[in-house]
């Protein structure tokens, strides 16, 4: 009986240690996947904007505020509905919007902003899970700015914040727009 009196607390300690390790591993995994999500989402948004910018013949900028800007790309689209019309222009807007969602935690409240890609000719065009409806994103856009450097170069600066880990990621990049003739709002 005497050995159980000593062994039982030790066994409890052993189980407690194991549980603590597993909890920590789970917590770390959650944190790490939040980081991956942040990187992936920033990559997705920038990659889409870059692809549209390269094809654009016109680019318009609408100043919404200090932190956010809306960009509109006009590009040639294939007229698959009417073969007689060969020169079809389509536009895609990248809009920053807040879905009246507020993220609240112990530090306070902040509205959640998302990037929304909207195509005019085909409104049902599927938007990406990350940049479109942002269905798996626990992130918010802090800054999205566009500037034109000389010689048809669009400079993009994007800051995303993870709501899970509160980490921020700023990515600056440029994209060369070979066919762009018209710049508005810069």
């Amino acid at each position, binding site marked *: 009986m005497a*050995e159980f009196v*000593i*062994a039982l607390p*030790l*066994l409890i*300690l*052993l189980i407690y*240690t*194991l549980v*603590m*390790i597993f909890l*920590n*591993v789970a917590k*770390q995994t959650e*944190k*790490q996947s939040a*980081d*991956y999500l*942040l*990187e992936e989402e*920033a*990559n997705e948004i*920038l990659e889409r904007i*870059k692809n549209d910018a390269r094809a654009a013949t016109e680019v318009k900028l609408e100043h919404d505020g200090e932190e956010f800007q809306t960009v509109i790309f006009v590009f040639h689209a294939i007229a698959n509905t009417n073969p007689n019309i060969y020169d079809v222009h389509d536009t895609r807007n990248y809009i920053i919007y807040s879905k009246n969602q507020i993220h609240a935690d112990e*530090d306070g409240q902040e509205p959640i902003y998302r990037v929304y890609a909207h195509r005019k000719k085909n409104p049902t065009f599927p938007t990406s899970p990350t940049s479109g409806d942002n269905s798996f994103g626990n992130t918010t856009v802090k800054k999205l700015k566009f500037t034109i*450097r000389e*010689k*048809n*170069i669009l*400079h993009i600066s994007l800051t995303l914040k993870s709501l899970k*880990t*509160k*980490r*921020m*990621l*700023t*990515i*600056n*990049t*440029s*994209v*060369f727009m*070979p066919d762009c003739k018209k710049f508005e709002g810069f």
Partner: protein
Amino acid sequence: MAEFVSAGRTIDMKKFFNERGLMLFNVIFLTLITSFAGMIVLNGMKKNENYNAELKIIALYLAEEQFAELESLAAEGNLTAGGKSFLGDTDDLKNYLYENDKKINSQIPINFEVDTNVSSYSSRLYRAEVKVSWTFKGEKKFVELKKNILQKNVS
């Protein structure tokens, strides 16, 4: 076996190494081993935070920025072979790692370096090699991207 005196108590070593005593011994050792393993795992966790993945994506987009500038030069027929400095916005070379853990908000500045080498591939085709490097916690890392750029025929 001799008698063992510790802290004013005598421990009979024969009794200590009998079956019941050995079981107790086992439990103590198991607990020690588990807690040591736990300490090692938990200690390693903090160092496991992979900031380099984040820095790598920033570096990749910096290389893209340099490619955009080179392509713009090529579109005007001004691309020449040889080493180049960073042609984009020099403010972009400085970036920050934001850490926000347990209400401590800190910014770690990271400096990126962009080395570019453009070599002539054929009469109009150029090959650009862009190497973006950074140092984080004394560790130097880099990404290297290569791209063929067609110079516009200006004649």
